[in-house]
């Protein structure tokens, strides 16, 4: 065996291996015809290799070569193999493209209709049904007139299709309304489909559902119309400028706001119609700034070209959908009324601020919660700042409690707050602590107000240091005068007692009983008046005395004075408590003195026993009844006590008249004198 035969042997084995691989894999390949052809090539190659091997191995005797023409056949098969392979590749590519085309067509929201030259539908894409509302199965092979005879514009569509088929030129786009249940708007383009010779064989209609687009455009138009209506009905004026600052649109309010007519300003810049001046330059400068910065300028208040009118102007950039600046929009609002109202408000505020700050008293405004606890100061005036020594800024961070002394803070703050919340004005005196620590007595006159549905307290704070000092001085003076008056009453009482004592001493030198009795009566009358002064200086109130105590003392004195021994004459006192003015008490005392003295002297002669009763009772309001009675012998029959020569009874009558009292006498089982009186006030001396 030669080396060549070895090479041939390897070749034989390789080609046989190749055939084995083909047999193994031919079932799973899609290139069956091509692989079968290659298998033929391999078989011929095996044959050739085996022949070569046998020839070089010297075994030609049992294997006859089938002939050299097989080599030519092998070469031709190679050619055929490559040719069929390339054909298959080409067809495979075409199939892929076709599949892709179909996928694209079916996946596209745009519908396609392929018609033949007779305008019958050959093929439609998946979107056809969605766009037109027709079932593809019902339209295949049909002309439009056969399934949509009543379609508006059908004849025009057929005419366009024929035109495309004849001229080979595209038609469209044309917008048509599809007759589906829900109105749809379709944009249709018709394209010619030509064969390799350029002859139109088919037409392809491309249908695009533009319902959303049409609806959107309609809505946009509606919105635009609405915008225009809003703009035109708005009292605010809108002026649209192009980038050359020419006015291209104004709203209907423009003339009212500026006085310029729309037809006079459209297409013009401000310099064309607006008088020169700083106002015009300022607006133009603002618009240029808006163009440069692409930011809003304003709002700024400007004077209107109309006299005494004011405008608020805002200048804004207007961008297109691509974000490019395309226009400048000026918004003009007539703020004359607002400005006048604002000016009036400012004036009013200034006026009230002036009043607030210049009022002599401190005025504060502070919060209060629902429990009546005061919150922070909302406002304080300058006087209050002076009063406390704090600045306004400091006070606005404080509460009224921060200024009060500790005991005042807890005293009745809650009760005061609740009173205020219930709408009652409150008047309190409190000491406040100034910044320097001094205590200043102040009078707070507080009222509750509603400020924006929130309860706030307005309080007028008055420094009462001087008034309090004056009051203290008056109080001291009053105490001093009371002391003096008490001393005077004491001394008057003493003097009257001295007089009474002198009369008593003198009466011892009188032999005449009648004269001595007169002395005694005078002495009792003086004692009666002295007793009044004694009562007065012992009391707190120097103007009034307790009449019951006075009468009790007076009656006991008389009993002692007339030396009533034992229980011969009993004194019965039934006296209601009554604080009576001095002017009433003195006549009452003298009347009691005379009536009791009369009873002790004359009612029980010859040592008769009996009793004297003095009663005082209130008969309603300030009306009193004083009764002096005895169970003695009574007045002589026919005696008119008002006309008697007795000084005592005359005194009783006169004093009763002085008191405007009603004096009654009843002679039943003794003597009963009853005096009904009201508190008597002597007219005060007129002060000139």
């Amino acid at each position, binding site marked *: 065996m030669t080396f*060549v035969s070895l090479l*041939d042997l390897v070749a034989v084995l390789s080609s046989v291996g*190749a055939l084995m691989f*083909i047999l193994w894999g031919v079932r799973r390949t899609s290139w069956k015809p091509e692989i079968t052809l290659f298998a033929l090539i*391999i078989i011929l190659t095996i044959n050739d290799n085996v022949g*070569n091997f046998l020839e070089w191995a010297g075994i030609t005797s049992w294997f006859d070569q089938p002939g050299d023409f097989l080599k030519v056949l092998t070469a031709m098969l190679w050619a055929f193999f490559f040719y069929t*392979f390339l054909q298959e590749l080409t067809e495979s590519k075409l199939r892929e493209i076709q599949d892709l085309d179909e996928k694209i067509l079916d996946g596209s929201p745009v519908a396609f209709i392929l018609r033949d030259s007779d305008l019958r539908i050959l093929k439609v894409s998946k979107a056809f049904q969605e766009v037109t509302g027709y079932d593809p199965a019902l339209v295949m092979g049909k002309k439009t007139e056969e399934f949509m005879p009543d379609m508006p514009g059908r004849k025009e569509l057929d005419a366009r299709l024929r035109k495309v088929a004849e001229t080979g030129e595209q038609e469209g786009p044309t917008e048509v309304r599809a007759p589906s249940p829900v109105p749809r708007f379709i944009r249709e383009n018709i394209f010619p489909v030509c064969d390799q010779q350029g002859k139109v064989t088919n037409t392809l209609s491309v249908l695009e559902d533009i319902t959303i687009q049409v609806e959107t455009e309609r809505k946009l138009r509606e919105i635009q119309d609405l915008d225009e209506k809003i703009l035109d009905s708005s009292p605010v004026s809108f002026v649209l400028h192009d980038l050359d600052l020419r006015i291209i649109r104004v709203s209907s309010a423009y003339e009212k706001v500026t006085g310029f007519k729309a037809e006079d300003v459209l297409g013009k810049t401000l310099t064309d119609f607006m008088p020169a001046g700083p106002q015009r330059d300022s607006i133009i400068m603002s618009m240029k700034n808006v163009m440069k910065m692409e930011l809003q300028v304003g709002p700024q208040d400007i004077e209107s070209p109309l006299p005494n009118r004011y405008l608020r102007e805002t200048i804004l950039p207007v961008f297109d959908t691509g974000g490019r600046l395309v226009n400048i929009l000026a918004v003009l609002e007539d703020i004359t009324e607002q400005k006048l109202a604002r000016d009036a408000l400012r004036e009013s505020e200034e006026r009230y601020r002036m009043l607030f700050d210049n009022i002599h008293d401190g005025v504060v405004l502070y919060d209060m919660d629902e429990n009546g606890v005061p919150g922070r100061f909302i406002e304080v005036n300058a006087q209050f700042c002076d009063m406390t020594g704090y600045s306004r800024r400091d006070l606005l961070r404080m509460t009224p409690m921060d200024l009060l002394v500790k005991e005042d803070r807890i005293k009745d703050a809650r009760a005061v707050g609740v009173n205020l919340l219930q709408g009652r004005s409150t008047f309190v005196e409190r000491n406040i602590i100034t910044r320097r620590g001094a205590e200043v007595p102040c009078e707070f006159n507080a009222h509750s107000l509603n400020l924006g549905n929130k309860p706030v307290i307005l309080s007028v704070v008055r420094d009462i240091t001087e008034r309090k000092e004056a009051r203290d001085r008056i109080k001291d003076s009053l105490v001093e005068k009371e002391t003096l008056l008490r001393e005077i009453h004491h001394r008057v009482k003493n003097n009257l007692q001295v007089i009474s004592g002198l009369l008593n001493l003198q009466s011892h030198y009188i032999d005449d009983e009648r004269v001595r009795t007169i002395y005694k009566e005078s002495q009792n009358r003086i004692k009666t008046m002295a007793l009044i002064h004694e009562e007065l200086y012992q009391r707190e109130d120097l103007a009034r005395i307790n009449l019951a105590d006075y009468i009790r003392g007076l009656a006991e004195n008389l009993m002692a004075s007339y030396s009533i021994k034992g229980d011969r004459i009993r004194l019965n006192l039934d006296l209601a408590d009554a604080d009576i003015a001095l002017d009433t008490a003195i006549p009452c005392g003298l009347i009691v003195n005379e009536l009791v003295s009369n009873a002790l002297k004359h009612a029980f002669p010859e040592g008769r026993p009996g009793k004297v009763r003095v009663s005082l009772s209130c008969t309603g309001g300030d009306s009193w009844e004083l009764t002096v009675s005895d169970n003695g012998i009574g007045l002589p029959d026919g005696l008119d006590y008002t006309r008697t020569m007795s000084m005592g009874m005359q005194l009783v009558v006169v004093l009763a008249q002085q008191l405007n009292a009603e004096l009654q006498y009843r002679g039943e089982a003794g003597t009963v004198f009853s005096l009904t009186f009201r508190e008597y006030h002597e007219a005060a001396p007129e002060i000139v």
Partner: protein
Amino acid sequence: MIQHNELITFLVGTGVALFIFINRRRIKQLPGSTWLFLSYSVLYVGWTLTIVEGFMMEEIVNLLEHACYMVSSISAALWCWIVLVTEEGGR
């Protein structure tokens, strides 16, 4: 000495080689096309050497010719392996 069938084989082979050369880019799309190219190219060289051996260095050229047949067969086997057995061919 030139034999007729060898010359015809060479001419047909040359035509196939030209066809392959012209469509080489498309044929490259085939899986394992390198081995297929190699197989045919070496076979074509073998066919050429068959003619050449009649004119010079008969033994050496003959040896080369048979070596070419061997390489061509191996390449063809490899191509079949790649296309029909491996996953690359399946793809």
